[in-house]
C-alpha cells in the first residue's frame, strides 16, 4: 500500500471522529446553556472552545464569546480547520483520494453526508436546531463506522482507518475530561450542580445508562474519572482507545511481518497506564496527568507517521 494511501485512510477517520466529538460537545454546551443561571451564561461556551482547542482561533475572528457565534464557529466556520463542516469535507476529500481502497457503501455515506451538509446554510439555521444537527452528524458518523465494519476487508486499510479513529478518540477524551467543571474542587453547595452536569456529560457520551450499570446511581469524581480513563468496557475511555490502537498496530506488524516502532510505543503507553490508579492521578495532579498523556498520544502519532507514512526511510524498529 502507498504510504500516502495509508495516511489518507488514517486522517479520513481522525476527521470524522473529530466531527462526531465536536457534535457531542456542542450538544452538551447547548443543554447546559438551557438550565444555566444568567450570570455565568457563557461559561459553557468558553469551555467548549477550550476542549476543542480552538479558543485562540475563535478569538482571532470574534471579539466576545456568545452562543450563536460559538455554534457557528464550531459547526460551519470555514477558517476553523476543525469545524464540523470542514471535518466532514476533509474526511470525504481523503476518502475521495483513495476511492479504490474503500467500498461503495463507505463512499456513499460520506459523500451523501457531504452533499447534504453543503445544502445547510450557516446563516439560516436556528439555534434550536443545534441538537438535531448534532444528532444528524452523530448518526452519519455511526453509519460510516457501520459501513466500514460491515463492508471493508479486515486488512491493512481497515487497520489504518481504525488507528485514525482510536488515536483521535484518545486525544479527544483527554480534552473532554479537561473541562473545568470536572476537575475543580467541589464543595457541598456545588455538588448538586455537578451531579447534574456530570449527568449531561455522560448522556453526551451515550454512556449514562452504562455508567449506572457499572457504578450505581451515585456519581462521584472518582467514579467518573475511572469510567472515562480506565474502564476497559467503555468504548470512549482512554484505556479502551489506546488498547485498540495497540491491537491495530499489532495487526499491521503481523500483516507486514515487520515490527514497528509505533507498536512498541503503544505497548509502553498502555502498560504505564495500567499501573496507575485514580487516586494516584489525583494525588499527583490531574493536570499533569492530562498533559502527560496528551504528549504520549502525540508521540504515538509521530511514531505511526515514521513507521508507515514516510515511504522511503520507514522506521520499523524503535
Amino acid at each position: 500500500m502507498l504510504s500516502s494511501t495509508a495516511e489518507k485512510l488514517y486522517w479520513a477517520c481522525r476527521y470524522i471522529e473529530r466531527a462526531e466529538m465536536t457534535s457531542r460537545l456542542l450538544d452538551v454546551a447547548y443543554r447546559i446553556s438551557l438550565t444555566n443561571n444568567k450570570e455565568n451564561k457563557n461559561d459553557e461556551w468558553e469551555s467548549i472552545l477550550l476542549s476543542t482547542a480552538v479558543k485562540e482561533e475563535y478569538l482571532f475572528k470574534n471579539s466576545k464569546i456568545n452562543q450563536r457565534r460559538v455554534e457557528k464557529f464550531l459547526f460551519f466556520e470555514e477558517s476553523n480547520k476543525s469545524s464540523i463542516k470542514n471535518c466532514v469535507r476533509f474526511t470525504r476529500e481523503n476518502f475521495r483520494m483513495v476511492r479504490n481502497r474503500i467500498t461503495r457503501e463507505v463512499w456513499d455515506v460520506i459523500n451523501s453526508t457531504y452533499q447534504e451538509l453543503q445544502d445547510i446554510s450557516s446563516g439560516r439555521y436556528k439555534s434550536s436546531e443545534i441538537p438535531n444537527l448534532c444528532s444528524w452528524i452523530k448518526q452519519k458518523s455511526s453509519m460510516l463506522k457501520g459501513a466500514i465494519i460491515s463492508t471493508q476487508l479486515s486488512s491493512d486499510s481497515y487497520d489504518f482507518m481504525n488507528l485514525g479513529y482510536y488515536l483521535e478518540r484518545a486525544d479527544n477524551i483527554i480534552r473532554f475530561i479537561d473541562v473545568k467543571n470536572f476537575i475543580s474542587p467541589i464543595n457541598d453547595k456545588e455538588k448538586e450542580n455537578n451531579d447534574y452536569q456530570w449527568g449531561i456529560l455522560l448522556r453526551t457520551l451515550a454512556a449514562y445508562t452504562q455508567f449506572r450499570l457499572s457504578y450505581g446511581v451515585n456519581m462521584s469524581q472518582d467514579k467518573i474519572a475511572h469510567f472515562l480513563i480506565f474502564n476497559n468496557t467503555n468504548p470512549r475511555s482512554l484505556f479502551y482507545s489506546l488498547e485498540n490502537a495497540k491491537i491495530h498496530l499489532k495487526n499491521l506488524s503481523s500483516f507486514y511481518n515487520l515490527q514497528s516502532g509505533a507498536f512498541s510505543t503503544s505497548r509502553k503507553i498502555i502498560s504505564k497506564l495500567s499501573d496507575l490508579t485514580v487516586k494516584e492521578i489525583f494525588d499527583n495532579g490531574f493536570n499533569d496527568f492530562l498533559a502527560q498523556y496528551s504528549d504520549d498520544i502525540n508521540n504515538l502519532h509521530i511514531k505511526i507517521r515514521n513507521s508507515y507514512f514516510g515511504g522511503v526511510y520507514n522506521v520499523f524498529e524503535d
Partner: protein
Amino acid sequence: MIFNEMINNGSIRKPYKKIDKWIKSFAENSYEKKHQEAQRIFKRIGITFSVYEKKSPQERMIPFDMVPRIFTSNEWKLIESGIKQRTKALNLFLYDVYNDASIIKEKIIPAELIYKSRAFESSMVGFSPPRKIFSHISGIDVVRTSLNKFVVLEDNCRTPSGVSYMMQNREIMMTMFPDLFNDNSIESIDDYPVNLRKMLTSIAPASCKNEPVIVVLTPGSYNSAYYEHSFLADLMGVELVQGEDLFTEKDKVYMRTVTGPKKVDVIYRRIDDNYLDPLCFDQNSLIGVPGVMNAYKNGNVTICSAPGCGIADDKAIYSYVPDIIKFYLSEKPILENVKTWNCSREKDLKFVLQNIKDLVVKEVHGSGGHGMLIGPKATKNQIKMFTKKIKNNPQKYIAQPTLDLSTCPTYTSNGMSPRHVDLRPFCLMGREMNVIKGALTRVALKENSLIVNSSQGGGVKDTWVLRK
C-alpha cells in the same frame, strides 16, 4: 441539410425503432422523474469534474441524457477501421519524427511546422520506446454529417479523457432500464479496463521480467478528470499515485509504500508533458517526478503516453494526416478530414479573412472549445476582434467550414428535441490494437449549439453498438 440520426426522410431509422417505441412508452411527466433520478445517481456516486470558478475548484456534474445514441455493426466497422488506421499511422509518424524524420526529408510536411511546434519534444529525439509506440491510447473525435459520412474533427493522442463517462453512462442505463438491454442486442464495453491493463502490461520495459507494477499518475484530486483517474486505477486494480508518491534512485522509479520503496515499471500518466519531470521540463512543477525521464530513457520504466506525443494531434498537423496515412501505410484514409485552412499559408490566410463569417476559426493550441470563433454565430464585433488576432499571429490559427453535425433526440425542458452530437471512440495500442465497441457521445444541450464540451454546458449519452 442536417442529418438526424433517428429520423431520416420522415421515417424512424431501423436501429432506432425500439428506442422510439421506448420513448413513446413514457407516460407524461414520468420521463422527467427518470431524468431526475439519473442525475441523482450521478451525484451520489460522485461522478464529477472540477471547474475553476473564482479561483477555487468547484465540483460539477456532467448532465446525462437518457436517450442512447445507436450505431449499427456496419457503421461501427467503418468507424473502427478508420480509427485503427489513423492511430497506426500517427504512431508511425511519431516514431519517424523523433528518429529518421523521413517524412520531413521527403518534404511531405514542412520542417518548421514540426520543429517550431510547442508540442515537439526535443528530449525524445533518437529515442525508441517499447514496441516503438508513442501514443498508446487515442481518442479521435468523429462527427457524422450524413447517412454514410463520418469525418474526423480532431485527433487526441496524449491522454484523452472521457472513458469513465462512457462506462458510467452504460452502468446507469443498465441499472435504470434493464429491459432495454434485453430487447436490444448491444455490444458490451465492460472489458475496457482489462484491455487497458493488458495494453499497459504489454509495453513494460524489456528489463522487466515479472508481472509489471503499473501505476496511474494523477495531478491530484483538484484536476478536472480526477474522477476518471481513480476510476481507471480502481478497475484495473493498480495504484493511483501523485508525483510525491514516486521517487527515483539510480535511474529507477519507486513508489513509497507502507513497507518501504517498491519499483514501478509502467506509468500511465494523466499529467501533461510539461509537468512530468522538473529536471527535464518545467522546473517549477510540483506534481511531477524528478528524474523520471532519465529512468524512462534508460529503459527502466515506460511512460504512457510518451512525452512529445502531442505533435501528432497538433491542430496544425491535422490537415496533413491524410498525407501521413498515405506516406506510411500506402492506404487511402478511411475517415475523411474536415477541410482545413492553415493560416500560416498565405493563400489560406487570405481565404480565411475573406470568408471568416462562414468559417469556424480555432487556435492551434486551444482546447475545450475555448479560443474559438464560430463565424455564422458570431457578432460583428467578435469577427472584427478575431480578424485582428489572426492578422497579428496567423500561424496560431486554423479555420474550417462549419460542419453540419448530426443530431440525436435529446430530452429538453420542451420535451424531446434534436441536439447536435459528436463521438469519441477509444483505441488502445500495445501488443494488440483494440477499439472498444462503444464510445463517449457528447451532446450540445442548447438548441442549435455546436459546442459539446462539458466545460461549456455539453452533456453525455450512452452509446450503443448493435450486434449483427
